[in-house]
């Protein structure tokens, strides 16, 4: 059980790191418009 939990932890960590790196370092240079960030407010810098 312990080893399965370890694997799950490392999978979660890898997923989280991949998401953050992709979001902040390899962000696609897409055209931004109102709908990219909510309509009049995206409510948070995400």
């Amino acid at each position, binding site marked *: *059980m*312990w080893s*399965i*939990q*370890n694997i*799950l*932890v490392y999978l*979660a*960590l890898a*997923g*989280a*790191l991949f*998401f*953050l790196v992709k*979001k*902040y370092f390899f*962000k696609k240079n897409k055209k*931004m418009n*109102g709908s990219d*960030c*909510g*309509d*009049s*407010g*995206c*409510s*948070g*810098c*995400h």
Partner: protein
Amino acid sequence: MSKPLNVALIGNPNTGKTSIFNLLTGLNQKVGNYPGITVEKKEGTCRLPNGTKAHVVDLPGTYSLNASSADEQLVVETLLSKNKKDYPDVAVVVADVENLKRNLILFTQIKDLQIPAILVVNMADQMERRGISLDVAMLEKKIQSKVVLVSSRKRTGIEQLKNLLEDYRSLAVSKTIHMADIDHDYFDRLQQAFPEQDLYSLWLVVSQDVPLTKIDDELQSVNNYSERATPEIKRLQQKETIARYLFINRFLKDVYQVDSSKATDWRSLLDRVLTHRVGGYVAFFLVMLLIFQAIYNWSSVPMDFIDESFVRLSEWAGNHLPAGPFTSLLAEGIIPGIGGIVIFIPQIAFLFLFISLLEESGYMSRIVFLMDRVMRRFGLSGKSVVPLISGTACAIPAVMAARNIENWKERLITILVTPFTTCSARLPVYLIIIALVIPDRTILGFNLQGLTLMGLYALGFAMAVFSAFILDKILKNKARTFFVIEMPAYKLPLAKNVLYTVIEKTKSFIFGAGKIILAISIVLWFLASNGYSDDFYKADEIVRAQVENAQLSDEEMETAIASYQLRHSYIGILGHTIEPVIRPLGYDWKIGIALVTSFAAREVFVATLATIYSVGSDEEETIKVRMSTDTNARTGEKLFTFPTGISLLLFYAFAMQCMSTLAVVKKETNSWKWPLIQLVLMTGFAYLASMIAFQLLK
């Protein structure tokens, strides 16, 4: 039997066009669909005084002949199809007396198609109450057409309209503007390509976004014109609109006046108070006071419920799932991290509820108008008010909203100062710090915590305006832009619209921020639950062996071990490395970690602290309790004191803690220079302000 007279009713939406249609046709009308599309077709008949039968078609409402929807496209196609049965012999353009200028744009376009047109100025019964005077004879002369004042509510003016319809052949069909004057080269080429056709009809075909299909055959070929749908078209459309406004402006001020001091309707009376140079600001202040008090007073019960629910969920996960690192990740990392943001749903929902009510009721436009007077003194455009106010939701769309400011200096200043306004990502940070360091008591009947939050919003706005003033002195450019805003009528907000806005905005906050917070919570938990030295892995032995710990109870010993282990985890080492830099501000290494992670997005601050304080701690305590009882390891005093709290609030009020905003500023200014200046100046100022505040207050 002679062919009935074809009458087309055309007008902007909400001008009372359908009421006039009903008055003209009575019960002699039918409603169907236009062939092949789901646009409603309303047509009817009426008998004119001389016995002529008129076939009246109520065309869909449109602001101009530049179609952007199927409804509007249908209007353009009807007016360009001379050989179709619905082509009007005469167009009745219905205008609302309060928005005559905007309505005249459509009228001039129809005149330029050389269709005989009558201008109906509807809602004429409102003129006296609203202090409006209109010189009908002079207006008729200027637009070379007939004008009739109608009140569909009081059923006046309809007989006069019928008389004018009867006499439609006497209406002049002269043009108001000449397209060739807008751009000789382009329009000469267009006319030469189709010499048989009317130039304005050609222009309407080539300038539509979607090819017009239901028009006369001879115009169909224009759809294939090589210079159709090019970027140049949009520029020419703008020039056409400007030319039309210039034409209207030349005579409108002589024929149409609004004297609001003579107005007696409740809207004008309310406007006189809400936009008054003193009363307006007092009213605005009182409304803001009410909003921030309500945010605090109404949301405390649901917030406590959410906080306790997440604590119970965390406890349940820790006790019932199989023991191991993944269970710890869930109980100490993911659940507290998500809980740290979900807890703010009630306050964020209330904030958006009030913003939505202000917008829906029409009061927001008055606020923008009122603040324009202030803005101009600080080198900002009246148009800067919109980015500054929308910045209370998020700086990203607010920075993008500065695009409609024509003057580059005013636009640049607006972009640079907008991130000072309090965005909703700052709200969770403010709320938790205020709850920790500001007493929950009332002063003169007002909740002190609510007053503090309102003060922070005012501080952000004041800082934006002050920075604009400084930038105005530094940057050189004398050109100015003008601010025009149309005041919408006051109305009771529609519950559906308000609810939709609240749900959409809150959902956007939770799911948008939630993904980042979940990812950062996982990384933080890993860094807080692992280390590389014996100090971390043998924390139990080391702490128990220390002589000063010999007298500790079991519970105290567990806390001492967890604290020692956390200090020697990866995150503890990182935090201690940066601690000397932030110590003058009153922060310890835990706050330092939250400062670093929240550079990605401010709202991550609370989730970071929630995760750090959850690792190895008692699961029954709420995050707020853990933070309020935490002590500074170096001084032994409480960590979240009044001076530290104020220092943190000032840091988040001024610092440029948002990577996404920097990216948008780079995109909007097309240079890294401005976002870097913004980052260094804002964060540098935040550091200094926080340090001074802490050193003075401690």
